[in-house]
C-alpha cells in the first residue's frame, strides 16, 4: 500500500500502462517537460522519451485526429485535453471519427484511444476551466465514458481504460487531484471498469454520483446520519455503459433516489438516470427521482461558483424532499 494523491495515482497508473505495453503513448499540450498543467504526466517523458510522451502542437482537433491515426497504426494513445472547456475543438474528431470508425469499418477497425479530460469546478478558475461536458459524450454512441472519484479508482481505471479496445473518454475530477488514499499498486484485483460501487451502504435513500460529486455526497451522507437518516451512496464510475443493476438493486431497497452531478440538470446525465430508474423501479419508488446539479446556465464566474455547485446543503435538501413527497 502506498499513500497517493489522485493525481499521483493517475501518474502511477499511466506509468504502469506504459511499462506494460510499449505501444502506449501519451500526447497532449505541455505533457512532456512540464508534466502537464496538473502534473499528471510528471516524469513520464524523462523516463519513456519524447517519442512516447509527445508535446503536441496547440491544436485539439489535431491531437485527437493524429491519435486516431496512431491507433490505426497499432498504438494506444492516451490523449490529454488540458481542460474540459478545450475539448470542443476536438469534438468533431471525437464524435464523427473516433466514435464511429468501428461501425464504419464493419468492425474491422479498433480505436483504443483514451481521451483524458480534467473536469469540474470549484478551483476558482476563469471561464472554460470548470465545466462538466460528460453528457455530450455519453450521448455519442461508440464511446465509453468513465469518471474516477478517488485515488484507488484513478490508478486502476486509467489502466483498464487504456486496455479497452474501444475509445474511452476519461473524466478526472480536477479539484480532487490532491485528495489522498492508500493504493495497492501491486494488486491487479480491480473492480471491472464499467461496474458501479456502493461506497457507503444505507437504507433510506440512494444517492447516485460520479467524479467530483462523490466526495460531496459522502459528506452529505455523514451529515444525514447525524439526523438519523441512512443514505446509500453509489459511485457510478462508468457513465456509458451504465451499471444499472447496481443502481436498481439499491433503489428497489430504499425507494428513494437523488442524483448529483456538477453539470447542468437540464438534459444532464441525471435525466437519463431518472428515466431509467423510473422505468425499472416504478412500483418501488416512494418519490420521484430528484436531481441536484449545476443550474441550467453557463458555468458562472468563480466568485459565485460555490452557489452553482451542488453542495452538502443542496444534496440534503433534495434528500429531505424525497421524504416529503
Amino acid at each position, binding site marked *: 500500500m502506498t499513500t497517493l494523491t489522485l493525481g499521483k495515482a493517475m501518474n502511477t497508473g499511466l506509468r504502469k500502462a506504459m511499462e506494460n505495453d510499449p505501444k502506449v503513448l501519451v500526447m497532449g*499540450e*505541455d505533457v*512532456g*517537460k*512540464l*508534466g502537464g*498543467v496538473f502534473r499528471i504526466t510528471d516524469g513520464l517523458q524523462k523516463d519513456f522519451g*519524447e*517519442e512516447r510522451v509527445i*508535446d*503536441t*502542437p*496547440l*491544436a485539439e*482537433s*489535431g491531437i485527437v485526429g493524429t491519435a486516431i491515426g496512431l491507433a490505426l497504426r497499432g498504438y494506444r494513445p492516451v490523449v490529454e485535453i488540458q481542460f474540459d*472547456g*478545450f475539448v*470542443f*475543438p476536438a469534438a468533431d474528431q471525437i464524435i464523427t471519427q473516433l466514435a464511429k470508425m468501428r461501425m464504419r469499418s464493419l468492425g474491422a477497425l479498433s480505436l483504443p484511444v483514451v481521451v483524458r479530460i480534467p473536469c469540474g469546478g470549484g478551483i*476558482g*478558475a*476563469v*471561464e*472554460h476551466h470548470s465545466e462538466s461536458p460528460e453528457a455530450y459524450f455519453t450521448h455519442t454512441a461508440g464511446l465509453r465514458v468513465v469518471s474516477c472519484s478517488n485515488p484507488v479508482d484513478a490508478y486502476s481505471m486509467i489502466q483498464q481504460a487504456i486496455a479497452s479496445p474501444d475509445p474511452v473518454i476519461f473524466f478526472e475530477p480536477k479539484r480532487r487531484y490532491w485528495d489522498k488514499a492508500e493504493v495497492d499498486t501491486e494488486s491487479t484485483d480491480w473492480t471491472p471498469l464499467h461496474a458501479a460501487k456502493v461506497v457507503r451502504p444505507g437504507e433510506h435513500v440512494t444517492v447516485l454520483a460520479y467524479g467530483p460529486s462523490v466526495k460531496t455526497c459522502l459528506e452529505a451522507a455523514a451529515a444525514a446520519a447525524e439526523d438519523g437518516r441512512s443514505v446509500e451512496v453509489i459511485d457510478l464510475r462508468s457513465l456509458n455503459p451504465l451499471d444499472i443493476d447496481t443502481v436498481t438493486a439499491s433503489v428497489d431497497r430504499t425507494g428513494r433516489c437523488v442524483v448529483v452531478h456538477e453539470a447542468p440538470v*437540464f438534459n444532464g446525465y441525471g435525466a437519463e438516470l431518472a428515466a431509467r430508474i423510473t422505468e425499472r423501479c416504478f412500483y418501488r419508488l416512494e418519490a420521484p427521482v430528484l436531481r441536484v446539479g449545476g*443550474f*441550467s*446556465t*453557463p458555468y*458562472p*464566474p*468563480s*466568485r*459565485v*461558483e460555490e*452557489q*452553482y455547485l451542488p453542495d452538502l*446543503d*443542496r444534496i440534503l*435538501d433534495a434528500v429531505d424532499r424525497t421524504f416529503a413527497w
Partner: protein
Amino acid sequence: MTIDSVRGAPDTPGLAEPELVQLLTPEGERVEHPDYPLDLSAEDVRGLYRDLVITRKLDLEAVALTRQGELGLWASLLGQEAAQIGSARALGEHDMVFPTYREHGVAWCRGVDPLRLLGMFRGVNHGGWDPAEHRFHLYTIVIGSQTLHATGYAMGIQRDGVLGTPSAGATIAYFGDGATSQGDVHESFVFASVFNAPIVFFCQNNQWAISEPLERQSRIPLFKRAQGYGFPGIRVDGNDVFACLAVTRRALENARTGQGPTLVEAFTYRMGAHTTTDDPTRYRLKAEEEAWKLKDPIERVKAYLVRGDLADAAFFEAVDDEAKATAKDLRERCLVLPDPGPLTIFENVYAEDHPLMTEEQERFAAYLASFEEEAS
C-alpha cells in the same frame, strides 16, 4: 547525413532566422528601414514611453494582487509591452480589436479601464466590458477562436462598403505563436485571404506556448506561412515599439484601402511565467530569459529619449509617479470590487425571459431564503 525521424533533417531550408524590421536598436539607436519610414515627434515618443511604463506597472500590480489572493489568475504581458503598445497606437477609431487574454497594453491604449480586466481574473464576471465602447472585443480564452470572429467582422466591414472612405476600419486579431497551430487560425487565414478581408493578423511570437517552444508549432518562421495563404507576412522586432507601430500602421492602411490581410509576426519574448500558476523553471533556461532582458522594450526607448535629449529627469520621474498612482488606484478599486450576488448566475443567459431560468432562479431564491427563516 542522418535524419532524425522525429525532428527532420538538421539543415531544413527556411530554418535560418530571417531579418526582422527594426527601427530602434536595443541600445536605443534609431535606424531607418527603406519600407517603413517613421516620423515621430518628441511628444509622440514620450507618449509611447508613458504607455509602456504604465502598462508594465499595471501588469506588475496585477501579478502582486494575484499573489495576495485578490485575483484568481493573471496572464502577465511582461516583455511584450512594445508589441502591444506599438500595434495599438497604430489603430484608428474605426478599427476593431480582437484580443486574446494577454492584451492588457492594447486594452490600455483603447481606453478600457484596467479594472475591467481585473474583474475577469478575479472571478467577478467572464469579461464584462462593452466591446463597442472602445472597439475592443472581449478577451478570448479558447485559443485561436477570436481570429475567425475578427475575420467575419472584417468581412462585415467589407460588405458595409466603407473601405477606402474616411470611415473605413480594419480589424486586428491578436494571437500567440501557439495559436498558429489551431484549425481556427488556419481557417481564418483562408477566409481572410479568399475574401480579401480587411484584417491584420498580429501574432505575438513570444517564443512559448506555456511550456512548449516555438519549434513545437512551426518549422518555418511564422510570418512565412502567410505566403501559402496568399497574403503578405512580415516579421517585426516585437520589442521595438517604433517598428511595431510603423509595420502595423502600414498593414492597417492596406486593409482599410481594400488591399486585404497581412500577417505581422512580432518577434518578442514572454519574460514572465505563462500565468501566475505556471513555473517556467521546469522547462526553460534562465540564460534565455537573461539574453532577452538585454532587449528590453522600455529601456531602449528611454535610452533614445535620453540620447536625443528629448526628455529630462523630471519627465521620467513624472511618468514613474503617474504609473505608481495609477497602479495604486487600480489596487484600491480592485479590493472593493463587489462579488456578484448568487442570483446573478441566471442573468444574461438569454435575451428575453426564459421559463427554465425563471423557474430555477425562483426555486434557488426560495432555497436561499429558507436558511434565513431557519436563522431567525
